[in-house]
């Protein structure tokens, strides 16, 4: 009986190890998910007063954007510098509904035209603009929050992905869109509230969103939505679509020649990221009580990218922690050392790119240990170490290698 060829033996052992690692990682993801859920739903509400909790809730609305960026940029390789656009659109949809409710004819009776939002009255508008009218309905508003950004993302994405515009050009064009929308909102004061945004939001169906108890409830709603977002993200990444995403990020031509519709996959993930951002924007408006163009333009959009990059562009969990960390840092520095903040965030941008392309999630102790074990076991066969999925030493040079989740995709 012939003994198996040594290379076949090796391959067998490797396959065995890989299977074990993948099931292992899936278990690890569940544990991470549980940790995140406990942190958001139990630990934060328990140890923080309402003010701090509201602040965390605000940061977590940015985490929606980061989740979208992980899917779109980390996995799909599409860097959008215009996520603020979608965040803003979601936020403005919600703000328009709340503003209309706050501007009932009784409380605006001193205006020359009662019943329209105050900033319209200041800008000599005599009637509610047509596009505002449907936002009297909460159902319509909820649909609009998802549909308006999705349609814009599709309109932007389809022609560009069809023509295979990607990478840097896509980034620059989305950035220009962010710039345009911010200028438009600021310029059209009478219709949008201008630079101040839409302020003085009060109630949601008569429920006062400014009270402490409302803030607590909204925090929970936000946290649950975010956890749901993580769940949706993972189910996509674990599906065939997730694998295709990684494949087209790394070798677009091959996926194309295999017969997949690359443009549609890219559009899907870009639209998905837009919806994530929009949900974050809507929750922002609810929790913070206003929406303004300062969350739409170039600077906020790119800050959202850095938050995702710091956490790890290849990790859904990493993105959330990164967002929390960057925004805590921002608040802390702008309160204590305002002149230092730009240095810190600037250095972060450079350090993340040069030293930690995988962000926080890339700092992977377990991977390092596994690598060591494999090296010892593999003896004089460095091949084995570099072929096993968790040993991603050489992957880290790639634009978006990921730690746990990347291995799941294999």
């Amino acid at each position: 009986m012939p003994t198996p060829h040594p290379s076949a033996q090796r391959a067998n052992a490797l396959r065995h190890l890989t299977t074990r690692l993948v099931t292992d990682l899936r278990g690890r993801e569940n544990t991470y998910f549980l940790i995140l859920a406990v942190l958001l739903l139990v630990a934060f509400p328990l140890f923080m007063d309402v003010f701090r909790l509201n602040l965390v809730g605000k940061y977590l609305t940015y985490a929606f954007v980061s989740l979208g960026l992980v899917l779109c940029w980390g996995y799909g390789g599409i860097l959008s510098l215009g996520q603020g656009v979608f965040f803003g659109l979601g936020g403005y949809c919600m703000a328009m509904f709340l503003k209309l409710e706050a501007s009932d004819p009784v409380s605006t009776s001193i205006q020359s035209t009662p019943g329209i939002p105050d900033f319209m009255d200041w800008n000599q508008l005599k009637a509610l603009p047509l596009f505002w009218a449907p936002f009297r309905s909460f159902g319509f508003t909820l649909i609009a929050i998802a549909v308006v950004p999705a349609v814009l993302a599709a309109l932007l994405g389809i022609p560009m992905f069809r023509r295979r515009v990607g990478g840097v050009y896509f980034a620059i064009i989305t950035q220009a869109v962010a710039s345009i929308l911010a200028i438009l909102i600021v310029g059209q004061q009478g219709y949008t509230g201008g630079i101040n945004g839409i302020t003085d939001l009060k109630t949601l169906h008569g429920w006062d969103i400014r009270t402490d108890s409302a803030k607590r409830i909204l925090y929970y709603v936000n946290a649950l939505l975010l956890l749901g977002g993580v769940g949706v993200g993972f189910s996509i990444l674990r599906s065939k679509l997730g694998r295709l995403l990684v494949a087209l990020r790394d070798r677009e031509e091959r996926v194309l020649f295999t017969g997949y519709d690359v443009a549609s996959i890219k559009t899907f993930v870009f639209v998905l990221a837009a919806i994530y951002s929009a949900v974050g924007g809507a929750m922002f408006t609810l929790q913070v009580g206003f929406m303004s163009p300062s969350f739409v333009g170039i600077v906020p959009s790119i800050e959202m990218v850095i938050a995702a990059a710091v956490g790890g562009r290849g990790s859904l969990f990493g993105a959330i922690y990164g967002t929390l960390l960057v925004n805590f840092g921002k608040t802390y520095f702008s309160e204590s050392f305002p002149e230092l903040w730009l240095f810190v965030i600037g250095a972060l941008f450079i350090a993340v790119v040069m030293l930690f392309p995988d962000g926080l999630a890339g700092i992977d102790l377990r991977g390092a240990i596994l690598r060591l074990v494999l090296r010892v076991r593999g003896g004089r066969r460095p091949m084995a170490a570099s072929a096993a999925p968790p040993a991603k030493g050489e992957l880290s040079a790639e634009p978006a290698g990921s730690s746990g989740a990347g291995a799941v995709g294999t």
Partner: protein
Amino acid sequence: MHASLAIWIMQAFNGLSTFSVLLLMALGLAIIFGQMGVINMAHGEFLTIGAYTTYLLSHASEKWAPWLSKWYFLVAVVVAFSLAGFVGLLVEHLLIRRLYRRPLDTLLATWGLSLIMQQTFRSAFGAREVSATLPDWLMGSLKPTPAIDIPINGLFVMGLTMGLTALVFVLLFRTRIGVDVRATMQNRAMAGAAGINTGRIDRFTFAFGCGLAGIAGAAFTTIGSTGPTSGSLYIVDTFLVVVFGGAQSLLGTIASAFTIAQTQATTEFFMTGSMAKVLTLSAVILILMARPQGLFTLQLRR
């Protein structure tokens, strides 16, 4: 009839003035982004370096060398070019060089650099905008007829832009180093095999592009004031100009700057400045969606 002609001439001048400003900004980027493919988000800050250099020199010459104050501006152009170019050299060596294969990461890293530079300007010169003292010969305006009023500083910027554009063309297409630069950008491996030191060419090209931004900054002090974030205000427009023109074509950059400037100036006549800008940029983006390669393309065998 006569008045409408005057309005028409002034309008044309406004368009040309916007054109030269856009082109001046885009020239350096056309080299760095168009030729090298490096996304330098800190390009605007190199412009600011030039502007602050001019501001400092204008005050220094007022204080210590009044005889120079008439012509300090010409010195400032040279110093601005050298200083911005030198910083560019450093940045290329420390940062860009390591990221040539990762364009998206270059974008993020240079954005970080731009934030650091902005805060450095703010710490050094304060948050308030400053202005250089203009020499007499740059002030005032030409009045061929009573109805027409053409500012001299605008004319000066126009002349400078034309001169610089000509210089870039000569340098790229009529000199040995230009051949080396184009060879490196079009086929790096082959250029290296032919004995061109491609690393040195990268460094030189990047520094030269930054130097051009420095000159643009110096020129801007004649038409506006300078603040820590002055440069970054232009960055998106500038990138759009280069992309719209067709990234690898210098001629395309000129054509695109002209088109965008004329559209902007014309629409500004009919509506508010912000709406004109929204309209112009949206048009550019729509056209780019239909024709991603931009106005002009370079035929290259890859």
